[in-house]
């Protein structure tokens, strides 16, 4: 390769607060636009002025109630979940120092799926399914941690292998439950597995976790930049590597568990969004983590709006759309930046 820096590398030459500010200035309108679309579009098309009236005014007609009670909770929930998944993916990629890592690689989603499908098998109500998914995710997280940590070595290879094996085990249980389920339940199980936000109407836990998570992670962001250079180098540069890796694992797992128990195993957001941001802006975690969180939320929100409007009145599982949007965009960017 010649010594001519590509534009993308030029961007990344120097990390800086000013550039980070510019990125947010571009991103925030996108966030607002995604919310505007999500709140206006649907079976009942509601003009933006009425949406604003419903949100900030005292409107109490049908449209106002649709906005306040149906669309806004769902929009906030999908946004929070997208943000959590992208953040978890970015953290997993640093933790495992592997660009292919994503939130589901360590079996968290497998555990959640076993929990959720188990609850669906028993015919439980939605919030029981959510709680059961969360419990399954936490169980998988503790299992992987316990097994990987067993002899105290806690290397990323051991962690990765343990997680992949636990995920495979969960996958087998999920397949078994699908095979045994009656057709009506199998349909809702499949929707859950593909990622479906239609029942996501309690956004606050996920939103609070996203905000708290960002506040916890941002002070560590430069430590993460150092960790990317290798554990030994990070330790020699004064980073408490073991503690940092525990924190990463715990936070990424919690983010994933919260998102998955709300919208199911939506794919690609956690893998692709961190990569998109990295391709465009570089690997400085101080920029990457908050941008990935906002971009992930925006992507999932837009995808969910498309999923419920594209073939209305039928609602598609949002996970299908994230894959359909994410894959070509990612391949296009990869083709523009060969050698990554």
């Amino acid at each position, binding site marked *: *390769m010649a*010594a001519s*820096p*590509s534009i993308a*590398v*030029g961007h*990344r*030459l*120097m*990390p*800086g*607060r000013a550039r980070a500010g510019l990125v947010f200035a571009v991103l925030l309108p996108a966030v607002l636009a995604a919310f505007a679309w999500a709140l206006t579009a649907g079976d009942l098309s509601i003009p933006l002025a009425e949406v604003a009236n419903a949100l900030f005014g005292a409107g109490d007609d049908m449209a106002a109630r649709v906005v306040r009670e149906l669309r806004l909770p769902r929009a906030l929930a999908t946004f929070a979940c997208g943000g959590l998944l992208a953040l978890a993916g970015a953290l997993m*990629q640093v933790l495992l*120092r*592997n*660009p292919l890592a994503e939130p589901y690689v360590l079996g968290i989603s497998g555990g959640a799926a076993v929990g959720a499908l188990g609850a669906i098998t028993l015919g439980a109500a939605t919030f029981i399914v959510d709680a059961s998914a969360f419990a399954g995710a936490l169980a998988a997280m503790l299992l992987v941690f316990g097994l990987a940590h067993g002899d105290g070595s806690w290397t990323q290879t051991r962690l990765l292998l343990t997680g992949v094996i636990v995920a495979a085990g969960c996958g087998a249980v999920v397949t078994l439950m699908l095979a045994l389920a009656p057709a009506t339940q199998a349909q809702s199980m499949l929707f859950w597995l593909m990622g479906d936000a239609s029942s996501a109407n309690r956004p606050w836990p996920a939103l609070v976790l996203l905000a708290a998570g960002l506040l916890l992670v941002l*002070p560590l962001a*430069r*430590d993460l*930049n*150092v960790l*990317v*250079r*290798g554990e*030994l*180098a990070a*330790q*020699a*540069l*004064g*980073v*408490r590597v073991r503690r940092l890796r525990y924190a990463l694992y715990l936070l990424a797992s919690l983010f994933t568990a919260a998102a998955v128990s709300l919208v199911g195993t939506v794919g690609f957001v956690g893998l692709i969004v961190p990569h998109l941001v*990295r391709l465009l802006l*570089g*690997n*400085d975690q*101080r920029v990457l983590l908050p941008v990935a969180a906002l971009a992930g939320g925006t992507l999932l929100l837009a995808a969910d709006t498309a999923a419920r409007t594209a073939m209305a009145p039928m609602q598609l599982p949002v996970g299908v759309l994230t894959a359909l949007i994410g894959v070509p965009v990612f391949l296009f960017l990869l083709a523009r930046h060969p*050698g*990554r």
Partner: protein
Amino acid sequence: MTTMTHPAAQDPLLQAGGLGVRIGERWLCRDLDLQLQRGECMAVIGANGAGKTTLLHTLAGLRPAAAGQLALGGRAVQDWPLRELARFRGLLAQQQPDHFAASVLETVLVGRHPHLGRWDWEGAEDERLARAALADVGLEAMAARDILSLSGGERQRVALAALLAQAPALFLLDEPLNHLDLRYQIAVLTLFRGLAEAGRGVVMVLHDINLAARFADRIVLLDGHGGARAGSRDEVLQPALLAEAFGHPLRRAEVEGRVLFIPE
């Protein structure tokens, strides 16, 4: 120059007494006494698997010693706060894991980490230091390049530049000549020799006995059976000792006033 941490300028940069290093049940060295003053270069030599890297990591305070005392700059190694220690001593790791794209300059700036507060971003002074470090290793024209597009030798020089940007008083180098061609081998050793002469200290794991003889004042020789000998260059670099440690006979020769060791 940056503000280096000088706990007490007259204390030795490195002082070990009765140091023992062990992996599992195997002793790599026992009862090792060594001292490094400002201005000195020390080479650690020995056969493959003799424990050079493990000893270097122990000296860096990255793993606990199995026996003995170790002080850096007159302070016991376990009493140093990690970030302060990272401003006092720097380590060049044997391997440079590069998994993600990043510019060369960005990678070198990572060396400034221990000098920055939690919320600080790298500033103009940090960039100046990083660019100066790149110039020192002959990479000033490559600041914008992606590290994943570099050759092995160029990556090694990027890692050296990051260490220079870290600006410690004590440099611990694990095989600094990895992947380097002849020209840069000499250039890098000359650079660190000069830094030592300017008042810092260098401990480096080397494979080439002749380069050790040329650039180091003090030598630590690990024999691979738990024995270690530390001393001046002339005390340690003796054909009989080297032959025993490396398991191969050597002959000492002098060519134009320079000592050379030639394998039989």
